[in-house]
Structure formats: structure tokens, C-alpha cells
């Protein structure tokens, strides 16, 4: 009896020690669980850096996780839930709405949301709304519909803001930058789980953060995070860097290329 219970825990610990949690995961315990033994959570990602090459078509990121000191009984009846998210770099985002003005569609209203993740990919054992109530999810900022979207500046009509929030989520979902998979986290053994997150082809570069949330009977008990760097590589990165860091020189090079191309053609195709 003893051995049976120990095996999964040992396996989990072993895996955790073996190092696929290699970038140190910060431990953020949230509230004391009801059981005297504290659960542990370790996560690791399949890679800590994703390179965007010129033929980048998107990538999959696998997040592994090990649950330690899990309560046997709760595990058996599926009381543990895991949500894994990957949040892209944050920036302000402006949603604009068009209206017909003199027969022409033009942007008339806009709402700017502060510091929202440019990309957000989420996988969970089951739909997050089934794990927790909307109020708590919104407080934690877990789940597509529960990300904090706070407008910058004065916005007159609160009802309109709700429309803009909804439009924001819809646009992000349709562009593939926001994704959710409510069956994307699978337990491969009672205490080991694997989450697959999809990074779209238009994933923004910068530091992304993979979050893993462990819920026990609907209560968030543990949270882990790991950084993931998404970098443009090779020529693309050199060009982007040059355009933003040396814009004047970059502009001069653009003009030079144009002059050489135009002049070269006139020399190459000269009729005499």
C-alpha cells in the first residue's frame, strides 16, 4: 500500500530534480491548503527560447509539470486542475470602432487598454469557468475572458467599454494571437502533466512568461512561472534592430539601395 502511493510521488520528485525544471521556478504559495501536507509544483518548458526565422510558421511549446505531495484521494476523484498560460510582452492596445459618416466608414470611437499581453495562449484540464467562478478568475487574471482590460483615460460610457473589451478579445482570437484549449493539459501519470501551447506565426518577439496554476477543489493553491524568450533571428533581427536603433542610418541605407538599384539598371540596360 505504501509503495503504491510512493511511486508517483517519487517519480515526480525525480523528474523535478533531473532538471527539466531547469530555469529556476519561483515558488509562490497562495493560501494554506486544507491538508496538512503542502503540495508542490514544478514546471519546465521544452525550450527556453524560440527563434523566429524568415520561414517561421508558428511553434508549439510544451510545458511539463510535476505535482508533489498530492493528496491521493483528491487526485483520484480529479480534484486537481491545472491551467497553463503563456503571456506575451505587454503593451497598450487601442480598439477603434467604425461608423458610417457621410456614407464612408471611419473610425469614430476608440478605447485604449493599458498593458495587455500582445499574445495569450491558454491550456487547461477543463474549461476555466468550470474550475472557478468568474469573480475569482477576474481577480487572478486567469483565462481569456478574465484578463484585466482597463481603459486609459476617461471613458464616458461603461457599457460601450464592455463592447470594446469583447471586440478586443474577438479580434485577438481571430488573429490567432489569443488562443485557448480547454483540454490542452493532460495528466500523463497521476502527478505528471503536460500542456501544449500553440505560438502563432505572428507571435510578438520579446520575453513571454509561462504560468502554471494549480487548483485544488477549485481553489488556487500554487502558481509557477517561467520566462520564454521569443527572438527574431538572423537577418530579420538585424534589420529590425537597425530600423529602431539607428533609424537615420537605416533610412540612408534604404535610399542608397534605391539609388544603386536605379542606377545599376540604367547601366545594365543601356542601349548603346
Amino acid at each position: 500500500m505504501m509503495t503504491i502511493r510512493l511511486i508517483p510521488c517519487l517519480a515526480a520528485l525525480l523528474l523535478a530534480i533531473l532538471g527539466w525544471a531547469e530555469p529556476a521556478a519561483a515558488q509562490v504559495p497562495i493560501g494554506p491548503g486544507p491538508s496538512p501536507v503542502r503540495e508542490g509544483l514544478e514546471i519546465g518548458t521544452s525550450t527556453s527560447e524560440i527563434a523566429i526565422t524568415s520561414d517561421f510558421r508558428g511553434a508549439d511549446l510544451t510545458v511539463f509539470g510535476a505535482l508533489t505531495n498530492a493528496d491521493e484521494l483528491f487526485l483520484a476523484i480529479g480534484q486537481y486542475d491545472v491551467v497553463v498560460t503563456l503571456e506575451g510582452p505587454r503593451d497598450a492596445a487601442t480598439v477603434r470602432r467604425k461608423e458610417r459618416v457621410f456614407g464612408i466608414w471611419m473610425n469614430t470611437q476608440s478605447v485604449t487598454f493599458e498593458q495587455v499581453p500582445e499574445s495569450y495562449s491558454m491550456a487547461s484540464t477543463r474549461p476555466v469557468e468550470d474550475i472557478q467562478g468568474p469573480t475569482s478568475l477576474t481577480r487572478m487574471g486567469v483565462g481569456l475572458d478574465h484578463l484585466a482590460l482597463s481603459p486609459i483615460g476617461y471613458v464616458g460610457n461603461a457599457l460601450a467599454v464592455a463592447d470594446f473589451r469583447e471586440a478586443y478579445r474577438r479580434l485577438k482570437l481571430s488573429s490567432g494571437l489569443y488562443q485557448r484549449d480547454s483540454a490542452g493539459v493532460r495528466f500523463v501519470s497521476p502527478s505528471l502533466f503536460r500542456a501544449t501551447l500553440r505560438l502563432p506565426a505572428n507571435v510578438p518577439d520579446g520575453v513571454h512568461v509561462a504560468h502554471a496554476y494549480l487548483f485544488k477543489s477549485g481553489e488556487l493553491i500554487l502558481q509557477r512561472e517561467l520566462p520564454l524568450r521569443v527572438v527574431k533571428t538572423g537577418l530579420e533581427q538585424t534589420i529590425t534592430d537597425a530600423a529602431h536603433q539607428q533609424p537615420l542610418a537605416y533610412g540612408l541605407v534604404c535610399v542608397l539601395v534605391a539609388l544603386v538599384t536605379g542606377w545599376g539598371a540604367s547601366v545594365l540596360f543601356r542601349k548603346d
Partner: protein
Amino acid sequence: MTVYLPIAELSVNIFIILGMGAAVGFLSGMFGVGGGFLITPLLIFYNIPPVVAVATGANQVVASSVSGAISHFRRGTLDMKLGTVLLVGGLAGASAGIWIFSWLRKVGQLDLIISLLYVVFLGTIGSLMLAESLRAMRRAARNEPMPLRRPGQHNWVHRLPLKMRFKKSKLYLSAIPVVALGFGIGILTSVMGVGGGFIMVPAMIYLLRIPTSVVVGTSLFQIIFVTAYTTIVQAATNYSVDIVLATILMVAGVIGAQYGVRVGQKLRGEQLRALLGLLVLAVGLRLAVDLVITPADLYSLSVGGFASR
């Protein structure tokens, strides 16, 4: 084969861009125009963010104007002094245009204004060109001679003060309309990504009465400097010149132009102009339709970068 455009931040099919560049280059060689007013709308139709399309279009015009300018310079068919006065206005106009461009972008009306300007200009120029060439065709059919333009006719432009002597053009002309013309074209270069030859050349001939022999060379002289300046300033303020996109367009464009020139020499002028007029009208119409039909989504999103991706 796809290629990633680092500034536009999207992957495109290289052959479509090459084809676009070659086709516009061909037309520009055939009709003797810069092609900026066709390249920018085409790029917008291909979902390149208008911010990038305009800035990259200006860069492309530099390449397509160089060889023409060189040959006019060799033949001496350009008025340096007149070109310099135009250029003074042009650089000021381009600077003002960049400011307007950045402001429109901030308030979220840039895409609309770019489309509107294109609809107005392409619609007007296309109709004028078509009407003029149809008239010429009818005249040719009836074997009537071309109506001659009598030189020495004066209009209000020639009563303005601040007169300057332009030896090469054999003109004694106020600097005000020249600078003003340059200024207006400069604004168009930075807001629309065009060289502006399609407006400047008629204005120089009909409004300023500049001899036709120096008009094209002088306007090319001004266009090269203003588009080069606009490219650099766009790169420095809006980071919106895509060198990969520009290079593909330019290489395809200059090659296409060589063949366009050859075909253009074999076709008749009025028919050519009627064709170009139709093409210009079609592009303008397409943009106009996009402005009027109900968009699939009333909401749009912009994040730090250019437009909804």
C-alpha cells in the same frame, strides 16, 4: 516561397511582390510615370499596413526615378535653378507631410485619409486622362490637327511678385507658385508615398508655362530628392520603411520598366493614355468601394506597431 518582412511584420509570397513590382515597373516604363501612385494602393490591397506601404512606396520611387534623372542630367534637359526652387518647397512640404502623417496615425485616421486622398487623386487624374485621350482619338479619327498651345500667354500666376529669372527655361517667373507647387507635392510624397510627377508635370506645363523640354527632367530632379528625404524621415520618425519589401519591389520594378519602355515606344500615345486612365480609375474605384461597403468587422485593433495583424 514566403519571405518575412521585418518592418511590416508579416510573411508574404515573394512572387506576388515581385510580380507587383514588375507590373508597376512595366507600366511606369511604358507611360513614363514613377509608379508610386499604383504601388502604394496595390500594397494596401495585399494587406501591407498603409503606414508601411506609403513609406516604402516613397523609397521605391527613388529607384524608379534615378535612371530617368541621370539621362536627363546627361542630356542637360533639366533646369537646375528651377529644380532647386521646387526642391525648397518640396522639402518643406515633405516635413509638414510627415508631421500630418504622424498626427493622423495617432488619432487613428491615417488609413482613411490615405484611401480618401487616393480615391480623389486617382479618380480625378484617371478621368482627365481618359477624357483627354478619347478626345485625341476622336480627333485622330477625323484627321484634325492637334490644337497648338500658343506660348507667351499669361495668366494670374505670372502677375505674382518675387520674380526670378530661370535662364534654362527662358522664363521670368515668380518664385511663389514654384515653391507652393513643390510644397504641395512634398506633402503628397510623405502622406501618399508618391513622387507626384503625375500632378507636377501637368501643373508645370499648363500653370507655370515651363517649356516641355525641361519639365520631365526638372520634376525628376525634385522627385528624387524629396522621395529620398521622405524615406529617411519616415524611417527616423515612424520606423515604417521596409527595406526587404522595398528591395524586392525596386529590383522587379527597374527590370519591368526596361521592357515597359520598349513596349511603350511601339504603341500609340492616345491608346496608351486611355489604358493608363482606365487602370488608374479602376484602382481608385476599388479603394472607393472599400470605403463605402460595410466592413466585415466594425472594430479594429492597433498594438504599438502598425495595424491589426
